[in-house]
């Protein structure tokens, strides 16, 4: 992370190391330091235009660019998968501008940039998880004024967050918020954990890895230092619960991971598979099998839709 020296011989010489100029990276690092010092607090930063549209992870990319060094190994996932367009393009972006090693293996990565998921495999102290954040302000749902939401954070006026949860229960009989589920950080700041499914919220609590959040459009950075207390908001009589599935993963048979539903045909046939592709394939390599597994390589069953036959 301390490494800021350009490596023009290895990286594409047309770009500064990791695309951003050194001054910008220093500015972002200062914001990150402040964010780490005040867990859950949204630090404004002078977000730059990136060579990709807003909504494609410009915030996460800037954070990654500010912390990545030549010796890092980068993994990028979108909805848990390494092979989606967004993940592939960001991985290629850093491979080209920083010439860093990339991987799809969670365990091998030193930096993991993510949209929507936290890897199933437990992260370590020597790893950094970078989140792409669309809307960093958890209070925005009910309070459109930025001046007011800042004041509410400053004065810890968080009743409004429970108004949202109250509405959920009154409409659906339970807290129906399933992603971007608000959390209380270190008993002080209410934070939007980005649109991760609430399934992943417990993983944030006391995580060994450093968690950094970047919102490009809104130009905000926030962070969870390692081993920070993260509590999902709830009511005494409607405690926080994560999603669970009746099915197991069709490919690896996992019952403890976040599952995506895959429609197989237009006759209503479907299967569930792990959203974390690395986790799933690692389990399959270890010999685990799910009901729809026919010893084809993972992915074939997704694309040709013939797995059930």
């Amino acid at each position, binding site marked *: 992370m301390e490494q800021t020296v350009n490596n023009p011989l290895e990286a594409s010489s047309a770009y500064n190391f990791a695309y951003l100029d050194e001054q910008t990276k220093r500015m972002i690092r200062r914001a990150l330091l402040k964010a780490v010092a005040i867990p859950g607090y949204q630090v404004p930063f002078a977000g730059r235009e990136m060579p990709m549209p807003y909504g494609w992870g410009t915030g996460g990319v800037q954070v990654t660019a500010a912390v990545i060094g030549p010796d890092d190994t980068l993994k990028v996932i979108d909805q848990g998968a390494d092979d989606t367009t967004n993940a592939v393009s960001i991985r290629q972006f850093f491979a080209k501008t920083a010439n860093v090693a990339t991987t799809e293996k969670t365990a091998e990565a030193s930096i993991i940039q993510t949209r929507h998921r936290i890897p199933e495999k437990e992260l370590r102290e020597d790893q950094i998880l970078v989140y792409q954040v669309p809307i960093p302000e958890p209070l925005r749902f*009910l309070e459109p004024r930025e001046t007011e939401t800042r*004041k509410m954070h400053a*004065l810890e*006026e968080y*009743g*409004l967050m*429970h*108004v*949202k949860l*109250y*509405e959920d*229960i*009154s*409409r659906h009989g339970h807290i129906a918020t399933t992603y971007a589920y608000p959390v209380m950080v270190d008993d002080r700041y209410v934070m939007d954990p980005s649109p991760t499914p609430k399934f992943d919220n417990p993983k944030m609590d006391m995580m060994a890895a450093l968690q950094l959040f970047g919102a490009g459009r809104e130009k905000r950075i926030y962070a969870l230092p390692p081993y920070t207390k993260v509590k999902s908001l*709830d*009511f*005494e*009589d*409607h405690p926080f619960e994560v999603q669970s599935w009746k099915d197991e993963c069709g490919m690896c048979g996992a019952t403890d991971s976040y599952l995506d539903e895959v429609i197989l045909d237009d006759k209503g046939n479907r299967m569930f598979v792990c959203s974390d592709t690395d986790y799933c394939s690692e389990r399959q390599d270890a010999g685990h099998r799910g009901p729809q597994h026919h010893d084809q390589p993972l992915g074939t069953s997704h694309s040709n839709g013939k797995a059930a036959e």
Partner: protein
Amino acid sequence: MTRSHEPLLRVSDLTMMYGDRVGCRNVSFELRPGEVLGIVGESGSGKSTLLRSISAQQEPTKGTVEYHTRIDGIRDIYQMSEAQRRLLMRTDWAFVHQNARDGLRMNVSAGANIGERLMAVGDRHYGNIRNAAENWLDKVEIATERLDDLPSTFSGGMQQRLQIARNLVTSPRLVFMDEPTGGLDVSVQARLLDLLRGLVHDLNLAVIIVTHDLAVARLLSHRLMVMQRGEVIESGLTDQVLDDPQHAYTQLLVSSILQN
């Protein structure tokens, strides 16, 4: 019900200037628990300016507003920290706006509107919050089946009553009202007046009510302050001020508005 003689609110020499223009000037009065004070005067007389300054929404140019807090005794509200002041405003105080839309969250249900203040002070039991909201809906005469409906589906009178419920759920001791019956049909006004009068009495609320409607002032307030050009020109017992006005402006106001 005996009223305490200790004032709940003391306003001293309050002046609000907008540059050279006078918002209100040299206003002093005390309010006791359970007492209803009406502030009357025509548009632009400084009523609303005064109300904003008293209710911690706009720091006055000069003068003090002291409130007898539950915990710390008498405090100058503009010397409190903002956190304390905001806590006071959403627990022990209430503000009923003329336009219910200004006082409600239109995009969440009636129940959430009422429950918000409870959740703001740390209530974390959904069932209890919902019961409290249901009770209050009933108290303000809105069918409890409407608990999960959005305020936008309510009539104007219902919205106003919902606003009152939302404000009173934390049992405040001081309520500010800015033309609470303004813009409502006459029959709806009557119902609201009746409701307000009952709540004021049952909950021993101290109220400062700004209105240009002298009939409303007569029916609700114990005391009256008449304002003209930013100054209080006459004050006293409501029926004395309205039936035997001494000041030229009050006489004009009474003779031009009051019908019976």
